[in-house]
């Protein structure tokens, strides 16, 4: 999912950076003092998740965890993902510094979108089953949307969209499944032991 340097055209890089800046600004506004440790821990989890590699098929892919971040953090996923990606680019040479804006957008925007789509369940205070399904869908769809956004960025530079999208989505099918399960497990656990962590976020005015 990390787009390397020198692949995208400058206009897309600038547009991605601008949108990411806006997203990060909104995210930072949402961060309260008591949220800071949560954002930090999830950012660290995101940073490490890229090292968990799923060895299936000819292409190797890794966990992303943007669904989990979106589900728990909402807009705050933007700064958390930006920090994680910056460190991945600097320390692991995944992606690159110039593509940081586009890569952050590709991973954080699905996180926020899924938060709005599936976060409703938590606000409506539904049962355990509904909650698990919503969390699973959140983890799944965030990865799916990320794949589509990556394909879209490549398409805007001149690649064939359908082919790029097919490759990105097909390669991430196992990751989608794993991330869905992981998101559901993590959030169910949080709901049991620390529900205010979820409710605090969802009680916020949107």
């Amino acid at each position: 999912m990390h787009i390397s340097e020198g692949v995208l055209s400058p206009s897309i890089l600038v547009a991605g950076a601008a949108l990411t800046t806006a997203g990060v600004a909104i995210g930072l506004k949402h961060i309260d003092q008591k949220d800071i440790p949560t954002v930090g821990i999830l950012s660290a989890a995101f940073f490490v998740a890229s090292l968990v590699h799923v060895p299936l098929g000819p292409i190797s892919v890794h966990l992303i965890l943007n669904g989990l971040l979106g589900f728990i953090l909402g807009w705050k996923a933007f700064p958390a993902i930006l920090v994680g990606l910056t460190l991945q680019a600097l320390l692991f040479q995944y992606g690159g510094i110039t593509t940081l804006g586009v890569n952050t957008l590709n991973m954080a925007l699905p996180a926020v979108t899924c938060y709005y789509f599936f976060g409703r369940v938590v606000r409506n205070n539904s049962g355990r089953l509904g909650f698990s399904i919503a969390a699973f869908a959140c983890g799944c769809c965030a990865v799916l949307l990320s794949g589509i956004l990556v394909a879209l960025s490549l398409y805007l530079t001149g690649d064939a969209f359908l082919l790029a999208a097919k490759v990105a989505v097909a390669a991430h099918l196992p990751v989608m499944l794993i991330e869905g399960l992981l998101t559901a497990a993590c959030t169910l656990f949080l709901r049991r032991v620390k529900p205010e962590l979820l409710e605090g976020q969802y009680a916020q005015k949107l």
Partner: protein
Amino acid sequence: MPKNSDKLIGKTFITRSISCFFAVLWLAFCNTPAIAHKVMIFAWVEGNTVHTESKISGGKEIRDATVFVLDGKGNRLLEGKTDNKGRFSFKTPKETDLRVVLKASMGHRAEWKIPAEDFKGVSRESERSIIQKSDTGPQSKVDTFLPSKNREGKVSKSIDAGITREEIEHLVNDALERKLAPIVDLLSESIDKRPTITEIMGGIGYIFGLVGVALYFKNRSNMSK
């Protein structure tokens, strides 16, 4: 005692989240041989052929990816696809600085530069030998290159009979390439730099440090209020 139980839950939450965190970390380390998501390409020159090898960090080859060959000014000279072993070879199109660019799926890209000097060694020698050949004519084949000829006429004659200077050069080059093959392989493997524990821990440290800085500033602004 709602406060007390709250504290207890908070404590179990913290210990559990820490154990979760370490579980993820453990998973990451377990998979280190297969860590991925960085692609790389390595190219070397053998005679008038350039060989390239493409792989994902962790050693897995990249099949069916496009390799572009550009000259120093960025003009595209040729392109091709990697085979099942992630390799792609081509005849040297131009003896200038070459840039070999790998473009794999999902926006992955890597580059390797071949300086012009890598070709020059080979071409100059062959040019020289051709000039020398035309100077001395077809009859005398190798002279100064085989000093043993002057000392021992018999042996030299048998050598002299079949081998030209060009052929010797060719043989030496072949032997050298065969001898150097493991070193080239080693080199191509050593380029694959996986994230080390130091880097992973460093990154996590950075994030926790940032959390500390953020808390510090939030705290200060709250205090001043």
